[in-house]
């Protein structure tokens, strides 16, 4: 009992004293009450809480081998470095559409650990892009023509894939609110709770793209890949395609991977807190030790096109056909829709105001 009396209030850190009338420990500062069992459990939780979120990553493969037998092309405009097999002719940069020139034999590019081979050919990717453009009334007419689709280029984009098991300790402030009234007054009762959750959750193959030329938003937009098709790397998969040489290291990709792990871990544990009117995280500590990463090439069809003097890029997942990109907006169509909708609403409004 004496050890319990040394506890601080988990709610406000003030001193707690035993209240003989309620047979509970009561904080004189915030009036919070706790049973002895609750205080012991909270004490255990706080002991194991830790000092802050922490991640440790290590490569799955200890010694990386340098890839050989490929030519290296360089874009004179955006400085993209592309690996192309010696039998394939390469003409234009998939990222900016500028001509690319042979830089000699490929060097300084490690052999990927794994690859998801292209599953969609150019025609199928073009159909996926056309389907993406359908049902977009603000899109300029004939924006995506067959001629443009012929210019799509198949590129293996470098990715870092992260695996980890995350341990989480999270404290939430939660409330339940109840309303009632009598003949003279309205009442609102707010019941306050401290909610504690601990546990673990595992992640596999979180992708972070390793190319500075490829906008992260485009690659996030074509997720997810089906990793059931992933296989050990074989240079034969690159025949007829380009492979981007990564210029964002695994270490530089750690923060994005950790952000994604933290967000989804918090979301998953938040889903276990139910039945409350409000739930606000007060403290969160997420750790992942022994996380692994590997280097993979994932298939992407890329189309660069121009409209009204501006470049528009589209990425099509070379395995699933999912498309990401920013379509241009036809200003005339935009104002036509805006005016038509406003006119209908205003006309209908006349019936209600008169």
């Amino acid at each position, binding site marked *: 009992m004496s050890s319990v009396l040394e506890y601080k209030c988990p*709610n406000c850190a003030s001193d707690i004293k035993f209240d003989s009338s309620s047979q509970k420990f009561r904080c004189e500062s915030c009036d*919070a*009450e*706790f049973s002895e069992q*609750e205080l012991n459990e909270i004490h255990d939780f706080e002991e194991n809480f830790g000092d802050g979120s922490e991640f440790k990553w290590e490569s799955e493969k200890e010694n990386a081998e340098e890839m050989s037998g490929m030519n290296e092309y360089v874009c004179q405009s955006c400085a993209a470095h592309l690996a192309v097999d010696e039998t394939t002719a390469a003409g234009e940069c998939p990222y900016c559409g500028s001509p690319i020139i042979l830089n000699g034999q490929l060097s300084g590019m490690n052999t990927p650990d794994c690859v998801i081979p292209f599953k969609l050919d150019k025609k199928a990717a073009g159909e996926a892009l056309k389907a993406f453009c359908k049902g*977009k*009334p*603000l899109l300029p007419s004939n924006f995506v023509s067959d001629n443009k689709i012929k210019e799509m280029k198949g590129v293996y984009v470098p990715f870092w894939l992260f695996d980890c098991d995350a341990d989480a300790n999270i404290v939430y402030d*939660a409330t339940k609110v109840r309303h009632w009234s009598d003949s*003279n007054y*309205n009442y*609102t*009762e*707010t*019941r306050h*709770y*401290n*909610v*504690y959750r601990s546990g*673990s*959750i*595992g992640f596999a*193959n*979180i992708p972070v793209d390793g190319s500075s030329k490829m906008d*992260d*938003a*485009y690659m*996030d*937009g074509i997720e997810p890949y089906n990793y059931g098709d992933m296989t050990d790397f074989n240079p034969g998969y690159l025949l007829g395609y380009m492979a981007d040489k990564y210029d964002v290291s695994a270490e530089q990709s750690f923060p994005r991977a950790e*952000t*994604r*792990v933290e*967000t*989804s871990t918090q*979301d*998953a544990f938040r889903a*276990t807190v139910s039945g409350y009117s409000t739930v606000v995280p007060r403290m969160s500590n997420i750790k992942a030790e022994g996380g692994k990463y590997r280097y993979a090439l994932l298939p992407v069809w890329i189309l660069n096109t121009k409209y009204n003097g501006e470049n528009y890029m589209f*990425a099509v997942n070379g395995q699933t056909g999912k498309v*990401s*990109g*920013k379509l241009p*907006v036809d200003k*005339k169509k935009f*104002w*036509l*829709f*805006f*005016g038509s*909708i*406003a*006119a*209908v*609403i*205003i*006309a209908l*409004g*006349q019936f*209600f*105001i*008169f």
Partner: protein
Amino acid sequence: MKKILSLIMVLFVLMSSALTAFANEESCVHDNADLLTGDEWTEIFNECERLMGEYQISVLILTTMSTDGDDIHTYAEDFYNEYAPYEDGLAFVINLNNNEVGNRDFYTYYCGTVYDTFGYEAYDSDYGTINSAVLPYLANEDYYSAFSEYLRLTEGYLSSEITYGNSDGYYDDGYLDDYYSDDYYEGDYYYDSTPSTSGCFIKELVVILAGAAVAFLVTFIMKSKMNTAVIKNEASDYVKAGSMNVTKSLDVFTHRHITKTAKPKNNSSSGSRSGGGFSGGGGGRSGGGGGKF
């Protein structure tokens, strides 16, 4: 494209004008209790229109089976504020009160300069000259005659008061002096009966803004679907199936807090007669009077 846009805009303007005109026509006589025949309604409507056009005031008539729990003054005032094309004017309201003889209401709501002209009607110890004159018709359920007589007498006052543009007549006897401040009597203030479209304008503005807001919302949603390249900061697609394990789940109630707020008091009351009240509608004076039949 320009042709289509122009066509839509022209159609919109024509549609709005037509609807507005139609709505205005409909708005001066609301025979919701169905007391008039079609021809009678047309005649009363034409007379109201003529008075409105000639004197630039609102002349409205409303019949209803019930005031939905409101007192007759509030009901008439709300009706006036909703349908009056001019700030100054009157609304003659018949509430059959579910046709309980002796419990049916008649009431006139006056607003602005018309209240200044007819205000004494509201303070008359009886029902007022006009109201008293139409009461026999109402008692006989001859509503067409009641409305005709009402409009005839009303024009009599209008032609002798408003067109003269002075404060002769009912004001000279000091009858209402206790109710008015001197500021209201200077010059021809309350005879400057300019058409007030402020109420309609505000409503129209609200509808236009609502239309623009809905159009903005819809086109914004359409536009947002044009971009699927969006950064992801979560990894829910990559959670290993069955990997989540909650080892501690503790929910501790700490304390509660109760707030108490007094209920707003309802001070409204209803009565068989009301009159002489002031309201803020249209920024001018208003009031009314009536009784039971």
